[in-house]
């Protein structure tokens, strides 16, 4: 079984994000980059599936990102993935979801695939679109926000439990399919020291757009980022207190009408 896991390089959730002067992006220096949190669940699920499926199955990490992404790909290999494809091209600078999906679809098709795991969204732009567009481009079903995954014995179908508002939904899907992973699906393993040593010998195939058969940026970008603006500074919190609740309510209404001007 060929198991594909998608990886994205994102800023650490604990990093302080500042917008650059021109408003064209974030200030990069000093920021620590990590594997997208939700992609860690994808890596772990891919590894578990491979270990259950037995010999012959492989986990291939596919990552589209800058040179620096190589170290994160190596971490996924240290966790136990077998090999990786690193799509790296200077022309790909934060591509829009359609372009990203077009590139990934080609890389994945070249690899061959039986199932694709990925995170439900990337924690930097929170768009959560690439995997859906990808599934459509590959003409395969997609099940999102997975918190439980089980492969059928015949490996042609799988059952996925997904977390939706107010409850869980159980979905059965044929394979291949795209499964996007949610927190709680599993507990990602650490990269063990023996794993880190083994990862040094594992193959990361680097591909430029040309290697994938594209001349220039493929697909059509359907959206573009106009500007980045920092969040408005929170104006602080006013506490309304009074001896009698009635008086507090009166004061609150007055503030909402006269100062906040929302009623």
């Amino acid at each position, binding site marked *: 079984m060929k198991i594909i896991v998608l990886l994205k390089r994102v800023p650490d959730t604990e990093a302080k994000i500042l917008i650059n002067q021109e408003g064209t992006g974030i200030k990069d220096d000093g920021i620590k980059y990590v594997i997208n949190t939700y992609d860690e669940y994808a890596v772990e699920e891919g590894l578990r599936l491979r270990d259950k499926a037995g010999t012959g199955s492989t986990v291939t990490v596919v990552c589209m990102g800058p040179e620096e992404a190589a170290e994160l790909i190596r971490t996924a290999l240290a966790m136990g993935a077998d090999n990786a494809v690193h799509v790296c091209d200077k022309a790909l600078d934060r591509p829009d979801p359609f372009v990203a999906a077009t590139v990934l679809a080609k890389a994945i098709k070249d690899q061959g695939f039986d199932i694709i795991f990925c995170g439900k969204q990337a924690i930097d732009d929170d768009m959560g679109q690439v995997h859906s567009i990808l599934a459509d481009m590959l003409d395969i079903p997609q099940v999102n926000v997975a918190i439980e995954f089980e492969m059928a014995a015949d490996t042609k179908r799988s059952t996925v439990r997904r977390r939706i508002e107010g409850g869980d939904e159980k979905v059965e899907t044929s394979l291949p399919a795209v499964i996007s992973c949610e927190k709680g699906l599993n507990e990602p393993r*650490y*990269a063990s020291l023996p794993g880190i040593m083994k990862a040094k010998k594992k193959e990361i195939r680097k591909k430029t757009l040309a290697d994938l058969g594209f001349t220039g940026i493929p697909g059509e970008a359907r959206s573009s980022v106009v500007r980045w603006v920092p969040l408005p500074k929170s104006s602080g919190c006013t506490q309304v207190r009074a001896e009698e609740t009635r008086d507090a309510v009166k004061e609150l209404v007055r503030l909402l009408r006269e100062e906040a001007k929302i009623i």
Partner: protein
Amino acid sequence: MKYPLTEEERMIQKTARDFARKELAPLAVEANEKGFLPEAVFKGLGELGFMGITVPEEYGGVGLGNFCLIIALEEISAVCASTGVTLSVHNSLTNWCILKYGSEKLRRHFLPRLASGEMLGAYAITESEAGSDIAAMRLSAVRKGDEYILNGAKIFISTGDKAGAIIVFGRTDPNNRTKGISAFVVEPSFEGFSIGKVEKKMGLKASTTVELVFEDCRVPAENLLGTEGMGMRIALAGLDGGRIGIAAQSLGIAQAALDETVRFTRERKQFATRIIDFQSSRWKIADMATAVEAARLLTYRAAKLRDAGEPCIKEAAMAKLFASRTANRVVYDALQLHGGVGYTEEFLVERLYRDARATELYEGTSEIQRLVISKAVIEDYERMMPD
């Protein structure tokens, strides 16, 4: 802290840090209260390879060097110094000693289980009359047929009650003060071995510190490490590596204290000012941070020399001396900057303060380190200066 680490070293550091913060931190407070670390900790560390970092792959280890070991030790010690010291003794002393001086049979018998974490290691030199003065030890090891019979007691042995492999130093020749000591690997199942007093310490409470009693304890002759009389040499060579490990442990404590201090003083306000914005606080932080980085560089240097197979007696002693002193100074200032709350168990600095104190006392007191350093420094000069 910018220091050129290789990709591999960064990954090892990350695994150690993540494991320490996610798995160890929740257990640390209770472990320090109860007085021991749960088995799960060493099983977890073993699965990740930390219990056999420097053991060659053929014996079940990862086959990495001292530098990788100290990177891991610092991260783990920052969260729980008790786990740090246990891990340091296990790797730098026990594993190292069996690897370097044990027969192939001993290596095959002990190293795989030590490397996996299912067995813990200990190192027994100290006696009530032999602390800094190692050669004053009196535990006797008398050859009798194909066994050595050990009689005496060792005190202050870390993990002595939980270890499956204990390196014990004893006198095989009562007439030769320095060359009459030999080293053995002792298993707790050997007849005549028992645990004596369990110490109640100021700090490092999750690391057990015990007395080991040998009453006609029967040790197979094949458990001799090296040859008879090599004991002093083995003990001192082992301490070189052990010192680098303790320097790393001290670093972890110091770094944690600095982190806690900045975290706290950024929040706490008095006189409408954050504590961190007073110049007196800033100067303290500057000195703390500089000392930590200097200690780190000394520790890194010693580890790299040892990995290169070069002599590092002076450098290891310098790292241990400076890092342990730094840890103690930093926790002192850290507690002071916390003010009153730093004195309560609600804040981490209280435990760091108590844990730090041991680092200037064990694996060679600061006084012994100064003895070692001055001897080496002066010898270097003597070689260059005319008579």
